[in-house]
C-alpha cells in the first residue's frame, strides 16, 4: 500500500478524470457507493465491477497500480464471507461489494490530489481535525522519504539481503524506531513554524477547478447510470432473471474500454 504512489498519479496524471472538478468526482464516488449499498444481485455487482474497470481503462488510469489496491479488500471480504455468509452466492456478493467500493474510492484517489478530497471533509469536521488532516498529508511525504533512507541505511550496515526475512524484519523495526524519534522532532519544528507564521487555526486549500466540463458531466452521468441500473434491478424483482444482461454489458464495457485505452 504505497500512499505516495497514489499521490504521484493524482498530481501528475493527465487523464479525462484528472480534468474533472474534485466535487464532481466526489459526488460520483458517492453515487457508486450508494450503488454498492443497494445492489442485491451478484451478477449485477459483477457487471458494475467490469464496467468500472473498463471505464478506468478507457481513460487510461494506471490500472496496474489501482487493481491490487482494489482487490486487496477481497481477501478480507472472503474471510468475512466464509465466516458469516450463509452460502457461496451471498459470499460472492459480499466480495463483489468490497471490490466495487474499493474500486470507486481508488479511482477517485488516483485522479484527485488528497488535499482536494480533504477540503470538503474539512468543512464538516472541527477545525483542529481538518487542519491535522492536511498536516498528515504533508508529514506523510517527509516521513516516507526519511523512512526509506533509514531502512536503506540499516540494511546496508547490517549487510542484509531479501533472503533473510527475520533479520530484515528486525531492521525494519529498528528503522521505525529511528523514524519515530525523527517524527517527534518534526512535529516540534512544525509547531515552531506554525507559531512563527502566525497560525491561529484554519489551514486552507485552494479548490481546484474543472478544466473540462465534459469530464464532470461524464463522471456524474456514468455513476448515476450505474446507480439507476442497480436500483432498477433491486426494486423490480421480476427483472432478476435478466441480471446476467448487466454482467454481459459490463464485460462489453470492459472490452470497449480496453480497446479505447489502447488506441489513445
Amino acid at each position, binding site marked *: 500500500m*504505497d500512499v505516495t504512489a497514489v499521490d504521484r498519479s493524482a498530481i501528475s496524471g493527465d487523464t479525462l478524470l484528472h480534468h474533472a472538478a474534485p466535487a464532481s468526482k466526489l459526488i460520483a464516488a458517492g453515487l457508486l457507493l450508494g450503488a454498492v*449499498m443497494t445492489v442485491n444481485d451478484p451478477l449485477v455487482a459483477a457487471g458494475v465491477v467490469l464496467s468500472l474497470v473498463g471505464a478506468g481503462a478507457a481513460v487510461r488510469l494506471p490500472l496496474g497500480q489501482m487493481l491490487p*489496491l482494489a482487490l486487496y479488500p477481497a481477501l*478480507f471480504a472472503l474471510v468475512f464471507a466464509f465466516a*458469516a455468509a450463509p452460502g457461496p452466492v451471498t459470499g460472492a456478493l459480499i466480495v463483489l461489494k468490497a471490490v466495487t*467500493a474499493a474500486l470507486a474510492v481508488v479511482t477517485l484517489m488516483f485522479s484527485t490530489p488528497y488535499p482536494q478530497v480533504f477540503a470538503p471533509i474539512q468543512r464538516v469536521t*472541527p477545525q483542529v481535525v481538518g487542519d491535522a488532516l492536511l498536516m498528515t498529508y504533508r508529514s506523510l511525504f517527509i516521513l516516507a522519504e526519511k523512512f526509506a533512507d533509514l531502512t536503506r541505511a540499516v540494511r546496508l550496515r547490517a549487510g542484509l539481503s531479501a533472503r533473510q526475512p527475520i533479520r530484515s524484519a528486525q531492521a525494519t*523495526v529498528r528503522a521505525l524506531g529511528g523514524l519515530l524519534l525523527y517524527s517527534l522532532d518534526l512535529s516540534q519544528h512544525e509547531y515552531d513554524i506554525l507559531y512563527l507564521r502566525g497560525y491561529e487555526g484554519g489551514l486552507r486549500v485552494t479548490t481546484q477547478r474543472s478544466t473540462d466540463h465534459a469530464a464532470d458531466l461524464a463522471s456524474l452521468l456514468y455513476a448515476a447510470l450505474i446507480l439507476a441500473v442497480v436500483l432498477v434491478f433491486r426494486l423490480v424483482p421480476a427483472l432478476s432473471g435478466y441480471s446476467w444482461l448487466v454482467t454481459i454489458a459490463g464485460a462489453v464495457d470492459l472490452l470497449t474500454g480496453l480497446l479505447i485505452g489502447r488506441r489513445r
Partner: protein
Amino acid sequence: MSHIHIPDGVLPWWLWLTGWLAAAALLGIAARRATRSGSRRAVPLIGVVSALVLVAMSSEIVPLAYHVNLTVVAGVLIGPWLGVISAFIVVLILALLGHGGVTVVGLNTLVIGAEIALGWALVRTGTRLFGIRRIRPIAAIATVVTLAATTTMVVGIVALAGAPAATRGTGALDAETLEFRNPFSEGVFSSGLVGGHEHGETDAHEDEHAHESEALAVSRFAAVVYTLGPIGWLLEALVTATILGYVGKVRPGLLFSGAGVQGRVAHVGDEHGGH
C-alpha cells in the same frame, strides 16, 4: 490493529450510521480538548503521528499477512484524546485507499480510538506501577490485551448486525437472518421466468432457521478472528515492545508527552501537552 475488514453494504445502515454519530461526538469532544490545550501544538503532533502510523502500515514486515499498526505506540505518544483524532484520520485515509469500507469509517474510528486509548491506559498504569525500565514487557502485555479487547469489540459489532432489527438492513443483507433475499434463494428459474412466487410464502420456513443461522454466523466469525488474530497480536506486541523499549532507553522524556521537550518557550495558549 482490529481494523474491521467488513466491506461496505454488509452492515445494516442503522449500525454504521450509529458508528458515524458516536465517532462524530467523540471527535467533537476530542477537538475541544485539543483546541483548549493549544491547537498549534496538537495539529502537528496529530499529523505527524498519523503519518507515522500510515508509513508503518505500508512497511510490509510480513508481506500481505501482517502489517505493523503502531496504535499502542501512538497512544503512548499522544494520549487518548489526540489519539481519537489520529484514529479518524488514519481510518479515513485507509478507507480512501480501499483499505476498509467508507461507511464503516465511524465504527473503525471507535475501534481504533479504543485501541489507542486502552493501549495508553495500560502502558501508563504499568509504567507507573513497575517503572519505565520495564517498559518492554509492559508494552508487550498491554498490546496483546488491547488487541484482544478490540477484536472482541469487532465481534460484538458483527453480533449486533446479526441481532433482530426492526428494519431490513441495506437491502442486500437482511439484518434479522444475515441472509440475502435474492432470487437465487428460491432458484433462478423459479422466479421471473416462470412467474415465481411471493416472498411471503417462504417467510415462515425461513423464520425457523433465522435464529440458528444468526448464531452460526457470529460464532463462525468469532472462531475465525480468534484463531487468526493472536498471531497478529503477538507480532504487534513484539514490534511495540521493541520500539517503546528503544524510545524509553534513548529519550524517555518523549513517552507520554509527545513533542515539546526541547527547552522551547511555551507560548501563551500552547501549554505543554503532557498527558
